[in-house]
């Protein structure tokens, strides 16, 4: 029976501790050994992926990891579908609004034409005829005759048209200083 002579024979010891009774290596060999140890240490100090640690910490099996991955993909797909559905819905609404706008613009054009047609001389004449309106008799200009009237002059004082008894009373009041009577007469 062939056995590996190294199995079970290698002593377990803390890394770096000197083994009692070990063969002492020459100085250059010791230096090489130290260098290789340093390299090993450097390699081990590299940052490790957190997921591995997380997976290890959560003690997830390989199936669970696959489920999570599938779930994540599904979530992304669902999100995409939701976005596409929203876009489609909005596109449909925009289409509806555009159609409404087109209809309203068509109606506006129609109204504009109707307004112009109603204002057109032809329509006005037609409406006038329906309302039994007729054209006035041919106009006639009155001959221009200059008049001897100074329109710039101040207007003449209006004659007093109050009754005689009022005028007499007023003159009496004026003569005897009746300010109130004068005020009443105005």
């Amino acid at each position: 029976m062939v056995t590996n002579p190294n199995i079970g024979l290698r002593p377990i010891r803390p890394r770096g501790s000197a083994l009692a009774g070990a063969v002492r290596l020459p100085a250059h060999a010791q230096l090489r050994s130290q260098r290789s140890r340093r390299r090993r240490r450097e390699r081990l100090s590299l940052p490790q992926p957190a997921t591995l640690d997380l997976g290890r910490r959560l003690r997830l099996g390989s199936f669970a990891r696959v489920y999570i991955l599938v779930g994540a993909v599904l979530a992304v797909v669902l999100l995409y579908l939701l976005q596409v559905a929203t876009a489609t819905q909005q596109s449909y609404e925009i289409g509806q609004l555009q159609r409404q706008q087109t209809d309203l613009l068509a109606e506006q054009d129609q109204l504009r034409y109707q307004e112009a047609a109603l204002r057109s001389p032809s329509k006005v004449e037609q409406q006038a005829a329906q309302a039994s309106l007729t054209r006035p008799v041919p106009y006639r200009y009155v001959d221009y005759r200059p008049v001897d009237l100074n329109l710039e002059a101040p207007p003449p004082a209006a004659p007093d048209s109050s009754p005689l008894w009022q005028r007499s009373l007023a003159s009496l009041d004026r003569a005897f200083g009746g300010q109130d009577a004068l005020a009443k007469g105005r």
Partner: protein
Amino acid sequence: MDFARGNVRARAREATRIGRREPFYKARVLALLLVALLLASVIWGRLFYWQVVEHKTLSADAVGQYSAQIVLPAARGQVYDRDRLSLAIDVTVYSVFVSPDQVPARKREHVAVALSSVLGKPVGEVMAILASQAKFAYIARRQPKEIADKLKHLDLPGVGLEADQQRSYLPGGSANVSLAANLLGFVNYEGRGQYGIEGYYNKTLSGQAGYMSTYRDMTGREIALGNTAKRDPVNGQDLVLTLDSSIQHTAEEVLAAGVQANHAESGTVLVMDTHTGGLVAWADYPAYNANDFAHTAVGSFIDPAVSHLYEPGSVMKIVTLSGAIENHAITPQTTIYDPGWIRVQGATLYDWDRANRGTVSYTKVLESSLNVGAVKAMQTEGKDAYYRNLVNFGFARQSGMDVAAESTEPLRALGDFRESELSTTTYGQGIDVNPVQMLAAVNVVANGGRYAQPHVVDLIGGRPAPLAIAPQPQVISPDTAAQMTTMMKSVVQHGSGHETRIDGFQLDEAGKTGTSQMLVNGQYSLDVWSSYVGFMPASNPRFTMLVIVRKPHNATWILNDGYIVAAPLWKRIAQAIVLNWHIAPTPGIAPV
């Protein structure tokens, strides 16, 4: 040992055999390689063909499948009159179509009856289309919105509506005619302006269409939120015309009645704003309905006001005598002896009545429209000066009017005229002009001697049109213009213009009649152009108007004269303008 020797021998034999077969194997391998290469070449060739040769086509096809370029049409500019009343407006119309294969057989009759009742088409005709199993067929084109709304409400299976734009014009002054049809022209189904203003200003009115590149889904629907490249359309510019709708309508109405009453073939009325040269009215009879251009004879689209030439007749005497006065050859008081005829280079030219009038002044020459007087004025003035005068009054070139298809006959060189021919041009025979040229020439007298550029568009997109602000060259002096105005006033007060006297303006009107015979097969016939041109108030003119009636056929020849046929039409339109523009008589005008 023997075994070993025999083995060696066998090996040697085998080696010899293989040695002999080696070229054969090589040939097979080569053949196989060649076949493989050939097959690979075929594949490479096909790949090269599809990926390199057909690259452009395929990539264009691919782009065509997922992208769409939507044209964003530009709104055509509107056309307004001087009071901002819309004369031409774009309205949406609808073409009704059916997809017969989408209409179930059991519903055909229902659909046919419904379409027939809304569109007024025979049921049988609609049924025939529905039974045809075609994929697509139009039932009716360019229907108004009311019809479209009714059909939408009915929600018929397999029936659809296709929106389109159509230019609409206002109703005109006579039956089944649109307002100023010949002047405005129309817009055809491709959206291009044809004839008149629509044709001349097509580029300005139509603007520039935009586009939008967008993506579409598998069903061909536009993905509105996709990445789009967009260029907004540039809408057409609006035009404001110098036209007055109210006067235009009256002119059309009066002209239609006048042409019919005189059993004439056609007629034209042009009214010009004296000081600006803007056309206020532009009426032709017969005209057409621009809303129904598709069912109109092509000949009707031609505008006689700019595209037809005519011999103006005695109206031309205004130009002849103005030039002679300007060149100091004559004065209104200068007298001549008029026996009723004159011989020029062997040809005898007569006055219209061949009467011997003895000694007459040039004012009388114009009042009574004497041809001999016009010829003598030219002879006194000299041919060169007379010819120069024709050029200055605008007869040697187009008027430059801003409407499509103006036609003129180039004025012959002076040397190409025989003396008798040049003599007849003095009274408007043997010279072809278009009505706009003639009106613009007479307007020189009304406008104090300045030539106002005739035009019909005042503002383009809110800015003054170039023709509207064109400089006005001085053709004759204001003094000459004043003298000619007095002579033309005399025509109204004492001469052939008496039919145009308007109450209140009798002393303040200027005008001239014209009657010219038509040339048929090289001979002057009895058919005439009857015309009247005038302006008022003469002391401060507001408008200049030319009325032309072609081939009036009244009972006698004399009844076809300009003062009987055209002058009364001039008066009726002038009365409408006086009322419309509130023109009051100038006080203190003394009779001539």
